[in-house]
């Protein structure tokens, strides 16, 4: 009996974990190329869900059209944030001073601005859900039960990851983006417009979070505070050492599974604290993350 329960927990965990992995990926690609931890990452997820709600419920469009449209809209918002704000903060930065503080403050400000904006609309007064992506009919995989929607979420999340991976691996633009995050100076030398690449990365990361938001929205509740899901992505990113992309994906899935198993075997109250304990434990024992490799030495 316990065996089935564990299997069930792992299966449900894989579904939510794949979405956490998407959000964590968006944090990591931003961090790799700009050294900024995006505290507004959760609000991009929330924006994605609300923009999707607008198109799905008010305009009655199908998911197949809504997902790309949401991705495009939130892409523009993310890119604009980098262009209009972060770019200027960087430009003002005096060498030798830590830029991190200013950047984190800017993203915290953005997160509050987004939450505040959404709260101004009356839709946000009540917690809502999005219509199911797929039917919620149960599917039996051996002894494990998932809904068809769960499977759709998992498949879409994996597809997005594969798409992203191919983009970074096989296209010229993707390789230029990777070069920018590996070494901005060398990238400038070979003629890559580093500033534009950074803006692009912000856009892609925002779009990624927004798609994740559309995917979790039928499962989580849509509210201005749903950006709190970011803490799970932080934990996933820390498992991956904030640099190792595969490690981050594994981290996301592991967190989804942990969350489900804690809910099944410990208590539903303890779910909320699981990611924090993961973060604190990992940072204490292996600050470079489980997959981070040796701690990088920072040059002065």
């Amino acid at each position, binding site marked *: 009996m316990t065996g089935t329960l564990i299997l069930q927990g792992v299966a449900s965990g894989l579904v939510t974990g794949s979405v956490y992995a998407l959000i964590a990926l968006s944090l990591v690609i931003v*961090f790799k190329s700009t*050294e900024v*931890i995006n505290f507004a990452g959760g609000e991009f997820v929330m924006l994605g869900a609300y923009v999707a709600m607008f198109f799905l419920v008010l305009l009655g469009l199908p998911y197949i059209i809504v997902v790309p449209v949401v991705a495009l809209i939130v892409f523009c918002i993310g890119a604009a944030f980098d262009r209009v*704000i972060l770019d*200027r*903060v960087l*430009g*003002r*930065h*005096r*060498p*030798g*001073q*830590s830029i*991190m*503080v*200013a950047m*984190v*403050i*800017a993203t*915290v*400000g*953005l*997160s*509050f*601005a*987004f*939450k*505040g*904006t959404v*709260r*101004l609309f009356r839709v946000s007064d009540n917690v809502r859900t999005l219509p199911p992506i797929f039917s919620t009919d149960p599917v039996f995989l051996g002894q494990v039960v998932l809904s068809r929607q769960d499977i759709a979420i998992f498949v879409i999340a994996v597809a997005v990851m594969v798409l992203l991976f191919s983009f970074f691996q096989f296209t010229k633009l993707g390789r230029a983006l990777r070069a920018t995050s590996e070494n901005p100076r060398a990238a400038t030398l070979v003629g890559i417009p580093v500033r534009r690449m950074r803006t692009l990365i912000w856009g892609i990361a925002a779009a990624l979070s927004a798609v994740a938001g559309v995917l979790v929205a039928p499962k989580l509740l849509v509210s201005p505070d749903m950006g709190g899901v970011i*803490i799970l992505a*932080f*934990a996933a990113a*820390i498992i991956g050492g*904030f640099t190792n992309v595969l490690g981050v994906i594994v981290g996301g899935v592991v967190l989804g599974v942990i969350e489900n198993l804690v809910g099944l075997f410990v208590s539903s*109250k303890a779910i*909320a*604290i699981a*990611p*924090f*304990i993961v*973060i*604190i434990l990992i*940072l*204490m024992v292996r*600050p470079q993350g489980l997959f981070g490799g040796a701690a990088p030495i*920072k040059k*002065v």
Partner: protein
Amino acid sequence: MAAIDRRWWIGGAGLVVVAAGLYLGAPIYVLYVANLLMTYAVLAIGLDVLLGRAGQFAFAHIAFYGIGIYTTALITNNTSLPVFVGIIAGGLLAGLVGIVIAIPATRLRDVYLALATFAFAEAAQWVFNNWDSVTKGPNGLRISSAKLFGYTITNDREAFFLVLFITLLVVAATAFIARSKLGRAMSAIGDSEHVAMASGVGVQRVKVTAFAISAIYAGVAGGMFTLYQSFIHPDSLGFDLIVLILTMVVVGGVGSMPGVILGVLLLGLMPEVLRNLREWQELIYGLILILAVLFMPRGIWGLITDRRQARQARNPAARPAPVEDAP
């Protein structure tokens, strides 16, 4: 030197007049706001010790504030000890927890420090919410009136001078620390850890000390809160409060005490002014943070001191040429 001394005297006299005026004439609600602002000031000064002077970005401040509130409240509720025992205990316990957190956390790179302390703050809020037998969890904890030398402090007016006294103590202690060897070591770390280390500053030890001082301040602020409040709920100890305090520090001026106090006054009074725009508050705070980072990296105080320096250097030739930033 004489000019500085005179400024101190004028400032001190002004403070006495304002304090006496508030105590004697102000309605009780104004005194409540004054008490609250002073509590925020102690919180903000504590955050600035860590952020502005030692350059360490940490989000754990509200957790220490909560520890201070609950410790003092529990001592007040369950014993008849004078309230300063509770406040000192709250400060010390917060400082102790701060040291325990700081020893591993300050070894981390700056971004991870922010994340680790963020996780700790959320975990602490979870504990306040779920440790029912001690904190009464989501029902909130009633705080009985503080007792001091046979008196019972029952309202904001009676608490006012005690809160003011603690605030002044904290301000004086911070000014003293800033001038001490420790304060200079902290600024050195804030400027550049590598240079500080090469100059023989015990970086790790100083960071832990800064963390502990910051936590003690937050714990004491928690004790101050119990003097004039009769109820605490874990929901009020969330991320929103740390963002409010952070906004005060950033808008006022990171790394300067007059700036921080200015920030506390401006942003602390804002909810009173914008009372009818409650639903706009979150958006406004967010925009203020972004605009502050964009247009005044050293806060309002930075703008003021820049202008003063410009006035002193009337002769343009005496001014150093602006340094062009490398791209």
